């Protein structure tokens, strides 16, 4: 692949070109001055996706943006939005005798309400394995039919179809010892939650590129049409992000909100129908419990009737208990774009990546971890 010209288009240094970025930034400077007149002084955009939060922080662009333009991090870090009650359920599953827990690495350090996390459960002897793909978990189950294998499924529309695909394979293989959690959240209803808040002050959404690769552009139409808020589906390279900001500014200036697609090399209008179909076969829409927001109807996914036997929470009868969030932690406000990490009294003092209090510091793509690591 290294020598193929087609491959070079995806890994070209042009995506990170300094001269082009400098020009993009001066365009942002110019447009944001005009946009600020429309919004009454301050322009607030929200990057909804945790992967964007990390990409923005790692590029160092936040300190190059004009003062009047603020990028807020949204509720798009899966670990961060998982409620304390669901985190406690993950830890209860890890305590099931003889079970093998498989998870993405991001979940390992999130503390439950009793101060334990998956790392400390592993130190106490639980069999917890970090995997790259839920298919690795299915393979572990197939190789050892004598033991129950549980995959910790959290995430948005990017990850839900992938886990649906793994569950469908487990069903096809007739595996009786594989199950998963379905702590999934949906992005469009999360946007509606933010927009229906009377205190909302978001002037545009940088929409998640990979969620949109699955669901397409249409599910966001209400944001522009009903709430009159600009939307740009954006890729993850520095120039993608700077261009996404410019396109949002342009919509603010023109006063004509719409859903634009900057990441058209991966995002089609209709998304990925095969992925949407498998997600709809294995899961169905349900109420979901969000950190700091609470339980909101029709904002998440649970196992469908046909796949209910793969629901780890049902198989091991793990109840849901409301649990308080860590004291003094501002993760909830940060997820809603109402505070920035340095506004939190714990940030960088009681709460840092080596001893994190809230999930926004635990998750590698949480807003607080990104601010801490890259010193925004």
């Amino acid at each position, binding site marked *: 692949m290294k020598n193929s010209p087609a491959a070079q288009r995806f890994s070209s240094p042009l995506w990170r070109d300094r001269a082009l970025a400098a020009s993009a930034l001066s365009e942002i400077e110019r447009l944001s001055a005009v946009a600020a007149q429309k919004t009454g002084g301050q322009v607030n955009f929200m990057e909804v996706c945790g992967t964007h939060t990390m990409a923005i922080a790692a590029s160092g662009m936040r300190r190059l943006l004009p003062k009047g333009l603020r990028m807020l991090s949204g509720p798009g870090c899966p670990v961060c939005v998982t409620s304390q009650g669901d985190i406690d359920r993950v830890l209860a599953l890890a305590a099931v005798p003889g079970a093998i827990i498989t998870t993405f690495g991001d979940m390992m350090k999130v503390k439950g309400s009793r101060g334990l996390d998956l790392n400390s459960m592993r130190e106490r002897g639980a069999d917890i394995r970090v995997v790259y793909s839920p*298919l690795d978990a299915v393979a572990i189950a197939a190789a050892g039919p004598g033991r129950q294998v549980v995959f910790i499924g959290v995430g948005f529309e990017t990850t839900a179809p992938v886990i649906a695909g793994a569950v469908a394979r487990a069903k096809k293989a007739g595996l009786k010892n594989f199950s998963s959690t379905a702590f999934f959240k949906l992005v469009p209803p999360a946007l509606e939650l933010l927009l229906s808040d009377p205190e909302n002050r978001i002037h545009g959404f940088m929409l998640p590129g990979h969620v949109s690769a699955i669901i397409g552009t249409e599910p966001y139409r209400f944001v522009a049409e009903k709430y009159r808020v600009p939307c740009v589906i954006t890729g993850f390279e520095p120039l993608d992000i700077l261009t996404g900001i410019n396109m949002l500014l342009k919509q603010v200036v023109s006063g004509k909100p719409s859903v634009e697609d900057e990441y058209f*090399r991966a995002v089609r209008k209709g998304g990925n129908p095969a992925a949407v179909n498998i997600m709809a076969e294995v899961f169905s829409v349900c109420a979901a419990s969000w950190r700091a927001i609470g339980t909101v109807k029709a904002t998440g996914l649970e196992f469908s009737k046909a796949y209910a036997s793969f629901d780890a929470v049902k198989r091991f009868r793990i109840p849901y208990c409301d649990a308080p969030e860590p004291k003094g932690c501002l993760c909830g406000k940060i997820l809603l774009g109402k505070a920035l990490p340095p506004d939190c009294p714990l940030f960088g003092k009681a709460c840092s990546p080596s001893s994190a209090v809230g999930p926004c510091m635990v998750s590698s793509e949480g807003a607080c971890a990104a601010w801490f690591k890259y010193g925004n």
Partner: protein
Amino acid sequence: MCLAVPGKIISLKNGDAEVDFNGVKRAVSLDLVPDARKNDYVLVHAGFAIQVLEPKEAEETLKLFEEIYGKDHGDALSGPLSHIKP
């Protein structure tokens, strides 16, 4: 967590593909992109290809960046950014 990486399908076997990520090869499920073929570029998330990528669209994006931000760029408000539409 929604990280996804582009790679090239170099061989196919029972619905799975071997995908080359800039020299690193991995098995990837094509269950979510049933129309993907050998030599296609795919976006891969957690072991599954989630979309087929068109190199010419990547090239088009890069060309747009050069047109908008290159030395003799015009006014981005009326310029090529307006071509980027769903």
